[in-house]
């Protein structure tokens, strides 16, 4: 049941009768060392109220000074989104009372954003079952502006962790004043039934772009990338825009997609019932996959904006802006196409690499001399399993791309079998040293002494006359038993292929 008590309409049915229009607002926490307007540190997860100073606590008399690095990041984001950069712009005060806002106004940009009128081309992948094709959608960017984050309220007591029913509330101002960039799209029209896919692909593309710019941690689960989804329906693409809802707290790519689907179904049900969609803020619930109504948001909500008199206008030197443009990384989508071609990966292989978060790691491993296919197998296979088992990011494993390349070189040289290589990896992850060191210390190298192998093969033949009969009788696959015996005898440190050759040769089949 939705808040308006009219149930839901099946998604496919809803998009067959209504035209969805999306709008996405993404807040990005910048990874600057200090806050937007003061020198307070910005470490994530620190003890409450330790990353503060007079300005970020809003103490009487304290004043803001713009963080130059934050401005630089804002301009680079704007340029990467193909925006125009304002020659002159100001901050404004957004006035409202809330305990997690130290000054009871947020210093933000209002009608003078630092970047405006841009776009981002987004590759929307084909649906899993292949029924809907891949395509590219151009997302029009209305603006990217700078603002400061608020603190965080913690409601203690009560069952829900929400303000209602709580015994008391605590406020942590560590996050207050963290630099944010808010990126706002224009209404995304013409997405049709692919609206959820477009929304997800846009946020994913934005995340990749921000990561490539190295301006943010872009961790949705930690809130350094937060997405608000605006959605409205209209009877047809020619009709005027319908009333929108704004869904907050959509903090994973999957949730972006699900929240859009849910809201499409909900709006359709409201409209089918002959009611009006309420313009309101809604909250996304990851666990139930539902949105619930928050505060009603009328256009009359009055923040009493006015230009921030404690900050001077920003007038970025055009020469500096051009210097920043020269620092932009290769666009992620373009870079991916280039790497896929260079590496010769199939589409599924490359998608696996991307999904594993291994593109940079594979790239570095290849740069250290490993063949691309081998590098991919390591990072998307064995190393991904280990990272999952340890519950860490792939890049947080205690092994570098160069070390992986060294390991692979030993495999390619025939010094290690795949099984031995995995054992060597154990030692490397345990901090026993590089590939060569671990192989030496653990005695893992393949036995290359031919006479020892021959002796072991002969011993196995002598010990298994029945098997030998079968092989001679044409059952070549029976050789496996002899190979296994030899491998066991050699403690696994033999090249199985060479053993097979020797078995066949000595049996004389």
């Amino acid at each position, binding site marked *: 049941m939705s808040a308006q008590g009219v149930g839901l309409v099946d998604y496919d049915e809803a998009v067959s009768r209504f035209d969805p229009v999306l709008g996405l607002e993404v807040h990005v926490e910048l990874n600057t060392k200090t806050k937007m307007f003061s020198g307070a540190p910005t470490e994530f997860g620190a003890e409450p109220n330790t990353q503060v100073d*007079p300005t970020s*606590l*809003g*103490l*009487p*008399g*304290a*004043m*803001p*000074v*713009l963080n130059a690095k934050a401005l630089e990041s804002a301009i680079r984001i704007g340029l990467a989104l193909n925006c125009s950069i304002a020659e002159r712009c100001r901050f404004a*005060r957004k*006035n409202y*009372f809330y*305990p997690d806002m*130290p*000054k*009871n*106004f947020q210093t933000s940009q209002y009608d003078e954003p630092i970047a405006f009128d841009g776009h981002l081309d987004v590759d929307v992948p084909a649906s899993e079952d292949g029924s809907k094709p891949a395509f590219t959608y151009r997302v029009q960017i209305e603006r990217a502006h700078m603002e400061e984050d608020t603190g965080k309220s913690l409601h203690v007591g009560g069952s829900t962790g929400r303000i209602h029913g709580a015994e008391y*509330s605590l*406020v942590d101002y560590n996050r207050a004043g963290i630099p944010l960039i808010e990126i706002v799209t224009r209404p995304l029209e013409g997405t049709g039934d692919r609206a959820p896919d477009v929304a997800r692909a846009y946020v994913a593309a934005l995340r990749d772009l921000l990561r490539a710019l190295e301006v943010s941690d872009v961790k949705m689960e930690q809130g350094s990338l937060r997405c608000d989804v605006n959605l409205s329906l209209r009877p047809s693409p020619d009709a005027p825009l319908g009333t929108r809802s704004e869904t907050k707290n959509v903090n994973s790519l999957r949730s972006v997609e699900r929240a859009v689907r849910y809201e499409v179904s909900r709006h359709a049900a409201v409209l089918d019932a002959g009611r009006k969609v309420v313009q309101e803020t809604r909250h996304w619930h990851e666990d139930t996959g539902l949105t619930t109504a928050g505060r009603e948001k009328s256009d*009359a909500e*009055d923040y*009493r*904006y*006015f230009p921030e*008199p*404690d*900050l*001077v206008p920003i007038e970025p030197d055009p020469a500096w802006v051009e210097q920043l443009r020269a620092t932009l990384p290769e666009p992620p989508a373009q870079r991916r196409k280039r790497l896929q071609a260079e590496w010769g990966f199939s589409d599924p292989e490359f998608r696996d690499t991307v999904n594993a978060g291994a593109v940079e790691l594979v790239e570095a491993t290849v740069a250290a001399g490993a063949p691309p296919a081998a590098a991919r197998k390591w990072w998307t296979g064995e190393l991904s399993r280990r990272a999952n088992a340890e519950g860490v990011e792939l890049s947080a494993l205690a092994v570098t791309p160069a070390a992986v390349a060294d390991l692979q070189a030993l495999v390619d040289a025939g010094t290690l079998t795949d099984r031995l290589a995995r054992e060597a990896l154990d030692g490397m992850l345990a901090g026993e040293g590089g590939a060569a060191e671990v192989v030496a210390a653990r005695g893992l190298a393949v036995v290359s002494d031919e006479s020892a192998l021959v002796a072991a093969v002969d011993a196995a033949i002598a010990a298994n006359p029945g098997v030998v009969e079968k092989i001679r009788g044409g059952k070549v696959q029976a050789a496996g038993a002899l190979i296994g015996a030899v491998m066991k005898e050699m403690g696994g440190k033999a090249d199985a292929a060479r053993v097979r050759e020797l078995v066949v040769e000595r049996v004389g089949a």
Partner: protein
Amino acid sequence: MSTPVAELVRWDAARLSQALRAGVVSSEEVTRAHLDRIAAVDGPTGDPDGSGVHAFLHVDAEGALARARQVDADRASGAELGPLAGIPIGVKDVLTTRGMPTTCGSRMLEGWVPPYDATVVRELHAAGLVVLGKTNMDEFAMGSTTEHSAFGVTRNPWDPTRIPGGSGGGSAAALAAFEAPLTIGSDTGGSIRQPAAVTGTVGVKPTYGAVSRYGLVALASSLDQAGPCARTVLDTALLHAVIAGHDPYDSTSIPAAVPDVVGAARRGADGDLSGVRVGVVRELSGEGYEPGVLARFAEALDELRAAGAEVVELSLPNIVHALAAYYLILPSEASSNLAKFDGMRYGLRVVPDGEHVTAEQVMRATRAAGFGDEAKRRIVLGTYALSAGYYDAYYGSAQKVRTLVQRDFTDAFGKVDVLVSPTAPTVAYRLGEKLDDPLAMYAGDVATIPANLAGIPGMSLPAGLSDGLPVGLQVLAPQQADDRLYRVGAALEARLVAKWGGPLLARVPEWKGVPA
């Protein structure tokens, strides 16, 4: 020691500086003399409505004496000290002082002890000045009489039944009552200059951005400016030189060299203003100005002419709208600046009775109890003026008027070097006289407000007495030409003091408190 200690409090800072450097007196002696004077005339602590001057809200005798002894020790060890090292000073209670209460004259901040010093206070410490304590003011610097202090009125040393001006009445009265030779004020629409005028002292509002606002609790950010107050033009310049300069903690502070204000004050003291063009602002005299004020102003113009200045009258047509624009811009900015006082983090916190009290209810109760009437009046005005649908008509129009006023000044300073006017239309009125008539009180700011709107520097200095009460003359100069104030001010001061046969403050009656 040959100098009677009681006499030390009558010395100006320049004379104290010489005596300290010559080893005639120690900073400890000078500091103790002022603390004794405060104890004698300021009234007993905890008796704010008694018969004392009540210039101070907080006196830090221990801290001041300790600092004085430190400066004496530094001097004895041959350390290089600034000209004002070892000299006591009072600081308006609107500037944060680490470890010393800062109330802004409001119940809202009663008992709040800031964890950091304002940049101005840091500069004072760095220059070796001895902070005696914090001076009284209208709540959050809103008012022209100091009657809006939550902690009781300050009395005018010339007549204890009269206002000392405001909002910085404490800083001005402390000078006129010889409780401190130097004080720091802040001026949003005249809060340094008008108190200086009605107490017979000198006060300067520097160019906007010349003195850091970091740690100056904001009333109206685009108008506020801290500045020096003293009994002579030279002392004011010496203090100006200490507190002015670029501050990376205040992005509106000017990244340029401070004009040589001390040099200008010394140069002006020869009383010669040959070649200086002085403009008399036609709109800032005549109707609404008391005859006694106009008479002293006219005599001062004669002195300027006698000093060789070329005096011309000119018109700044838009400044008649300055008062109206100011009383929209100020409340608008103030409504936002004062929003932070909500009982959540520091200062007063009022929790209403009942179960399940919300944060919003605590905020409401705290603000209802913590702010006085004048603060509430301006918060309501400003909130209204910034509201959607009214912004353009009020705040937007006021900013346009502000631009026109700035343009008028630019035009005027194309013709003259400085402008002059009476500082205030009247002499000090009686306590309570305009308490119920805010518009009449606001009208007293008519001559000082234009400088704040335009961001230009202004000085008030004594021009004589009317019915036994001081009259102030205002000098205005272009942005970043603060030195012109000091040259013209020092020249006029030299000639007037010669004419009077001594400083005006020599005539301030000995403090006897309020007549029964």
